[in-house]
């Protein structure tokens, strides 16, 4: 039955998203399901049943005529001939997500190296080896830059995915959404841990100072710990946010006007226009930046967290204002497969 659903979804993927089309799809699925069930009851094998159902399905041109969609279907034919959009296969999606996680690792590690590089001179100044400290700092920064460069080298190979040449079919959408669900939990904990590390980075230094009068090496060591914690925190934040970002980018490649946008809309809302889409896509990165900048400038972490609940409330308000409603999308929810 899954094959039949996939087949039907593929047929409808590029049809305009209207109430009529949704109804037609639901009805056709019902008929196919009835036929499939009966064939299975008659003792046919899965393959035979699927083969019969699909061979007796018909074609969409006829349906388009009845639904008054000849223009759209013709346009779609012409468009797909002039500018073929193809469905990504599962292997490609897997490879892309794997590449994304390597890239996220490189960039997060690069940033962490740059942050931690300052500890070289700080720590080694305690034993009067400033020169070596600066050398270590430059080596670490060079390592970071190398990682940035490395992450950029392979990115061209994948740019076609997000540049509009491809779309996610039903199976691909499901696969990607499963990946997202799998990642979501570790995303939340990594992000939280990252923010906590940044938020309490000053704690060891202050505690150590309170317990004993720190002097010389001890203090320098605690400052190094501070930067180490910030570096770890930033690493966790960037790494997890970038992976999540590329999963979301992938889920957004389906055209919002066609039926295929329905597969992923639960995960990625489609907005009214490109401008709204742009605003929403930089919303969380902006909030995160404001939070980190404000926090690091003032070091008043016990105050700055307030930005998150406020941002969350603002987000849901803005989202509901910008979100586009499709005709019939709510009425036909119960018909979804």
């Amino acid at each position: 039955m899954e094959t039949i659903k996939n087949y039907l979804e593929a047929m409808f993927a590029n049809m305009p998203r209207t109430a009529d089309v949704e109804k037609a799809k639901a009805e056709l699925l019902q008929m196919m399901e009835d036929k499939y069930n009966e064939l299975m009851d008659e003792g046919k094998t899965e393959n035979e049943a699927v083969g019969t159902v699909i061979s007796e399905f018909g074609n969409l041109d006829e349906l388009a005529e009845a639904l008054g969609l000849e223009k759209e279907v013709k346009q779609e034919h012409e468009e797909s001939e002039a500018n073929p959009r193809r469905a990504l296969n599962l292997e490609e999606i897997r490879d892309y997500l794997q590449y994304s996680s390597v890239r996220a690792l490189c960039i997060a590690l690069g940033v962490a190296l740059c942050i931690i590089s300052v500890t070289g001179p700080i720590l080694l100044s305690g034993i009067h080896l400033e020169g070596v400290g600066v050398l270590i700092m430059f080596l670490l920064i060079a390592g970071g830059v190398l990682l940035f460069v490395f992450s950029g080298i392979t990115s061209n190979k994948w740019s076609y995915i997000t540049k509009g040449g491809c779309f996610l079919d039903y199976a691909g959408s499901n696969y990607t959404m499963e990946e997202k669900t799998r990642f979501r939990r570790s995303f939340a904990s990594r992000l939280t841990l990252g923010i906590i590390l940044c938020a309490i980075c000053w704690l060891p230094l202050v505690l150590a100072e309170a317990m004993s009068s720190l002097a010389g090496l001890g203090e320098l060591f605690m400052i190094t710990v501070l930067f180490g914690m910030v570096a770890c925190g930033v690493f966790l934040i960037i790494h997890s946010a970038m992976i999540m970002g590329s999963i979301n980018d992938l889920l957004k490649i389906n055209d919002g006007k066609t039926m295929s946008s329905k597969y992923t809309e639960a995960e990625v809302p489609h907005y009214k226009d490109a401008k709204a889409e742009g605003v929403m896509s930089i919303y969380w990165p902006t909030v995160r930046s404001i939070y980190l900048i404000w926090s690091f400038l003032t070091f008043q972490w016990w105050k700055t967290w307030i930005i998150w609940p406020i941002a969350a409330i603002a987000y849901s308000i803005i989202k509901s204002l910008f979100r586009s409603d499709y005709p019939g999308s709510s009425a036909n929810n119960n018909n979804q497969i």
Partner: protein
Amino acid sequence: MAEINAGISSDVIRGYNDTMILYILKQEPSYGYEISKRIRSISEDKYIIKETTLYSAFSRMEKNGYIESYEAAGDGSGKKRTYYRISEAGLNYYREKCNEWELTKDVVQRFIDGSSYLIMKGDKNGND
């Protein structure tokens, strides 16, 4: 007649899909797959209507007011399905189509090799 089994041209039969569906709905309201099954059994497996053809016909006839659709739980299974029933306008349309077919059959038959038309005509002449 068995030759038709080798493949019925959808172009030819297209004009009469509505007639077949209305004939079935005239007896009792029904739903998509049930109708397609009945068309198949009445035609003794000689005509299998495609799903898209069937739905296109539903959609067109509903727009024209020949049939009405409603949601109902099927026989025993408890599954909600879209049922169709014929309307007054649909009944009139069905009768029109029947007359049209009689006429079509009569005309086309005159051009079919080895048909029984000449005999029929002979009978008619004889009666006159």
